[in-house]
């Protein structure tokens, strides 16, 4: 049976306004509300799609955070087989390399054919988790994937490039793939099914061990960008305004 591991992380919800901690170098945790990393949600869906297509055991591993149990039970309601919560993670965000080292040890025990996770998480500052994990597991990595089919000892995956071009990649298994989007949008599960899982499914706790929070990069300051309340009006005659608009498009890298 194909073994698939999915790493699912909670990240700060950008619907809420973010605040900076008094230290000035981190997010204020008191104000954070967490939500599943959108790309990880797609990774979960892709794993369930592969399971439904050709059979697989799907294990979800998540670092602990407020709301992580509900998130894990939701994945079980969608069809995940095994739920693991990484405990002892602490409040300060560990480096991704350190998180990857801890995850790699657990993943090695499972000995999966495929490890899926979101291609990025918006709050990552110290590298991306998926490629780091791949290196530590000595597995190949391809990211920005939007479709996977599994064959004998290999996966065929579709990698997205700008302009809508897809690259078809053949990847030897076991492998780590960074998911951009699942083949179908993440499904909805009725709350009643999730509640049922809360009573029947179980979450295995695993101790994260010692996690490093210092990546060697010194953060001087974290801050909110300045935002204007109302549109900045471009003044001048038509020709002048047009050239100002073009300068803005160029600044945005759109021209």
């Amino acid at each position, binding site marked *: 049976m194909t073994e698939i591991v999915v790493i699912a992380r909670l990240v700060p919800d*950008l619907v809420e306004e*973010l605040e900076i901690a008094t230290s000035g170098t981190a*997010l204020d945790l008191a104000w954070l509300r967490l939500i599943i990393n959108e790309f990880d949600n797609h990774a979960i869906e892709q794993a369930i799609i592969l399971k439904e297509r050709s059979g697989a055991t799907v294990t979800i591993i998540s670092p602990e955070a407020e709301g992580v149990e509900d998130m894990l039970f939701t994945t079980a309601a969608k069809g995940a087989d095994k739920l693991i919560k990484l405990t002892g993670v602490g409040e300060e965000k560990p480096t991704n*390399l350190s998180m*990857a080292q801890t995850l790699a040890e657990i993943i090695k025990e499972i000995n999966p054919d495929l490890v899926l996770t979101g*291609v990025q998480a918006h709050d990552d*500052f110290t*590298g*991306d988790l998926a*490629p780091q994990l*791949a*290196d530590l597991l000595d597995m*190949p*990595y*391809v*990211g*920005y994937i939007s479709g996977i089919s599994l064959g004998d000892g290999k996966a*065929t995956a*579709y990698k*997205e*490039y*700008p*302009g*809508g*071009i*897809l*690259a*078809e*990649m*053949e*990847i*030897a298994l076991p492998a780590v793939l*960074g998911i951009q989007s699942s083949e179908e949008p993440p499904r909805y599960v009725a709350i009643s099914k999730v509640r049922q899982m809360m009573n029947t499914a179980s979450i295995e706790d695993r101790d994260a061990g010692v996690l490093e929070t210092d*990546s*060697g*990069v*010194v*953060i*001087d300051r*974290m801050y*909110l*960008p300045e935002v*204007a309340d*109302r*549109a*900045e*009006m471009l003044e001048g005659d*038509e020709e002048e*305004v*047009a050239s100002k*608009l*073009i300068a*803005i*498009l*160029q*600044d*945005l*890298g*759109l*021209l």
Partner: protein
Amino acid sequence: MTQDIFLLIEHIQGQVSDISYIMAAAARELAQNEGDSVIGILFGSGAEGLKDSLAVDKVIYCDHPTLSEFTSDAYKRTLISLLEDYSPRAILFGNTTLGADVSSSLAAHLKFPIINSCLKISDSGGIISQICGGKIMVDSQLADKTTLITVNPGGYKPEEGQSSSSPETITFSPPDLENLKVQLTQYIEPEAGDVDISQEKILIAIGRGIQTEDNIELADELAELLGGAVCASRPVIDQGWLSTSRLVGRSGKKVKPDLYLCLGISGATEHIEAITDSKTIIAVNSDPDAPIFDIAQYGIEVDLFDFIDPLLEQIENAKND
């Protein structure tokens, strides 16, 4: 460790990507002292000529048939081999579908620190990053050893990293590239057909202010020049001038482009609801009180039809420069 700044040149199907020029511009800012070089890393097969337009001091070029197009495994192996010979201050990668496939994995392999999502280099040589979907800025410093940096577009213009003088080439012999675990089998071009406006990066949105069906051509022309698609608010769709698949609003699609350029859209709530995830909204309207100006980042109060011709002309000029 030298004080040289390296950058991985990205190219797809024989075209150098804009991010490569943007990185060259950022690297120039980072190489602060006289004598520190900006060095491009170029992998390819018969692709040495791709270095020519880049504003870098030197290019380390590695030629191998397997390196003709990007694959993560071959690039990573070649980079590991290359970094046995070189010890730069920093290496820049695009925070792109290409660069992000190797940067973090290389960092983990060599135990090099890595900084994500650099937008600009500060005057003092610090790294200014943008995380959390642009809602948080981070100022940081290079670590005390070779530091990898992923670079976002937007901080520099590609022209700032272009040059007409061809950089000197240092050739590098490829490592063993047998038994690779990742192979590119083919590129698949997007199918023709109606565009999905919810996936477009650039949208030209038209509203009641476009006035007649004939004027839609102007929006089409603008979209073509900018590489985007045309969408519309309700009045235009109700006239039957565009198909329902192009409707943005409560009864149409929700969109999240990098640029939402609206022409003659006043900004009714049912329209605004569906565009709030856009990265940049630029509004053109003759009514200074149009509510669209409350949510747009940039506003232009002009008569649309006096404005669009000079705009089209200037964009064409800008593209030809």
